[in-house]
């Protein structure tokens, strides 16, 4: 068997790096530099009050604390697994806060930050990872669909829901979340074809965190992801995913365009998964520590904090109060997780169908009787 040819060097998608066969202009929308300096972009003006800035900071800190607490809970055996969002807080908070109340989000399984912006109780997300249920929140009431674990399937759901919005004459849009790995899935590509063909009010929000578990972006795409949109016939934009302001501005604009009937947009939020894929993963096997160190310099929270401090938009008391709130949140999550009751075993039969079948009802009865027989026997 002959060896496979060496893959040629892929376009380095890291902003500023050499990509000789691509235009050299900066393609990354950024409104806040890693140093916390506010910059303007000709296409994405953002009017934002100091209070809104502080609220975004609070969001970022709280979801990171939730995430850190969940990872700790997994390590202590309280969760089966946890998919950390560490490093992707700005992408998720920016996207989530760009949504209107009646817009609908279609997450994968890592969108805890978006869940937070939709008012989903963190314990309803935790219950999934604890193995109590498949997500305890109400997707309709929150405008936040349940987590989708099979990669990419949710992009079609978002597109179909958007087609429903069109038929209802509703002035809303859907926001489909996906990762860089998902862009290789046929269903994601089908979703983009459908969205384009029907001009559906859907925005595809791709968090390019550089890895699909262990496999780097080079294996998924030979071109920067946002450039793929052109092939489907709608705009693609790359935004600094660690810049909450840029993500907010870009997503807002894309959602508004969708609501106004201008069809889909593909957003590539360029970011980095600072932690492991999940608590079962070991990233030291496939990536260099130096890479992580480099990305730490682009931390989404540090840059907003720097901006708020330097511009005197927040004082020490504010930062302290956010820390206290984060501590309280962590405590609530910890207590709520440990105290979470196990589900009723017979409940697994109850919502398989909207209209129960006689066969499954009989199976349930048999199961309940079988379990009861142990209790009667005093075992």
């Amino acid at each position, binding site marked *: 068997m002959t060896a496979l040819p060496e893959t040629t060097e892929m376009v380095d998608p890291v902003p500023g790096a050499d990509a000789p066969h691509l235009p050299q202009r900066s393609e990354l929308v950024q409104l806040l530099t890693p140093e916390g300096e506010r910059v303007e972009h000709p296409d994405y003006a953002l009017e934002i009050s100091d209070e809104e800035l502080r609220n975004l900071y609070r969001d970022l800190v709280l979801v990171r604390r939730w995430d850190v607490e969940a990872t700790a809970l997994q390590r202590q055996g309280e969760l089966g697994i946890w998919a950390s969002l560490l490093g992707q807080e700005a992408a998720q908070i920016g996207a989530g806060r760009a949504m209107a109340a009646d817009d609908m989000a279609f997450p994968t399984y890592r969108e805890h930050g978006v869940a937070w912006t939709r008012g989903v109780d963190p314990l309803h997300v935790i219950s999934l990872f604890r193995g109590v249920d*498949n997500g305890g929140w109400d997707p309709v009431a929150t405008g936040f669909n349940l987590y989708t674990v099979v990669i990419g399937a949710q992009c*079609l759901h978002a597109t179909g829901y958007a087609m429903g919005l069109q038929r209802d004459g509703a002035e809303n849009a859907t926001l489909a979340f996906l990762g860089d790995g998902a862009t290789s899935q046929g*269903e994601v590509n089908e979703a983009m074809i459908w969205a384009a063909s029907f001009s559906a009010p859907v925005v595809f929000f791709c968090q390019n965190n550089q890895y699909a578990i262990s496999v780097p972006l080079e294996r998924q795409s030979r071109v920067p992801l946002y450039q793929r949109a052109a092939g489907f016939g709608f705009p693609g934009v790359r935004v600094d995913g660690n810049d909450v302001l840029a993500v907010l501005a870009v997503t807002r604009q894309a959602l508004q365009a969708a609501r106004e009937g201008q069809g889909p947009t593909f957003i590539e939020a360029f970011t980095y998964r600072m932690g492991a894929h999940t608590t079962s993963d070991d990233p030291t096997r496939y990536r260099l520590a130096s890479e992580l160190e480099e990305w730490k310099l682009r931390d989404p929270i540090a840059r907003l904090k720097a901006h708020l401090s330097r511009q005197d938009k927040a004082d020490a008391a504010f930062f302290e109060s956010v820390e206290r709130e984060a501590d309280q949140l962590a405590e609530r999550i910890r207590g709520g997780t440990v105290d979470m009751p196990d589900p009723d075993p017979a409940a697994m039969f109850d919502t398989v169908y909207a209209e129960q*079948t006689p066969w499954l009802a009989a199976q349930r009865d048999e199961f309940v009787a079988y379990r009861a027989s142990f209790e009667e026997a005093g075992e």
Partner: protein
Amino acid sequence: MSTETLTIGKALNLGLRKAMEDDAKVVLMGEDIGKLGGVFRITDGLQKDFGEARVVDTPLAEAGILGTAVGLAMRGYRPVCEIQFDGFVFPAYNQIVTQVAKMHARSKGRLPMPIVIRIPFGGGIGAVEHHSESPEAYFAHTAGLKVVAVSNPVDAYWGIQQAIAHPDPIVFLEPKRRYWEKAEVDTDATPDPLFASRVVRGGDDVTVLAYGPMVKTALQAAEAVAEEGRSLEVVDLRTVSPLDLEPVFESVRRTGRCVVVHEAPVTLGLGAEIAARVTESCFHSLEAPVLRVGGFDTPYPPSKLEEEYLPDLDRVLDAVDRAMEF
């Protein structure tokens, strides 16, 4: 009373029309179902009358059809998806099994999936590969789905309407080689329940079970053995999941013999499940093991061989003989 002579295909067409008139949330989706009216013309004229928003000519992407149907269902619509041929359902299999089937349970009942997946199924039409398959067992094996297989114009007319009105996702199998079979349909009648089997011919010697295209074959067998003085009780299962086997058990306790007929390969097919359940429920009444007549465990063969592959009158009669002689 309003009675018409209809083919299965026309009965489906009228049933779809009625369902669309009754509920504005019903949306038909599929490849070539608009202007063309579908490759079997089942949706003929519906786009013209209901418009492109309700009869959607989709891109050529089966996963897209089912995946967007999920989103539409979440938004309160009742999508009716046409899969052009049985063998083309597999690109959509992921959406059907991981999403359509599980969404209701995943969401603790908050997200019902009233989706109908119409599939012309089975062989006997001289087609090329992937156009003659019987994939029902894959779906019957999947919790969260219901699977219906109609055999005649009356059930086609009512069944499609009942399936569309039902709150759970239903794989609705249409016997493509029987699309042109005719019968009287009373469109004012009260239909039988969707998930109920039906004894279509009474008899005493052997209970023969079939669904979809094989019901006709089973009835032909009953006709043939009648000339020899034997009588077969033929049951049209009508629903493959959930199975309605109480009438079958009743019949088998009387006849003591049971033959299951389907086009799908026998290994782990519906016949295997039915044989197990009949054995569990009728063990002391059985005079012979439950026998299966089905396709072989080969890929569906090229059409010059399909007459050899498909269960036909003689193979059913052979099984009946074996059951009688046991």
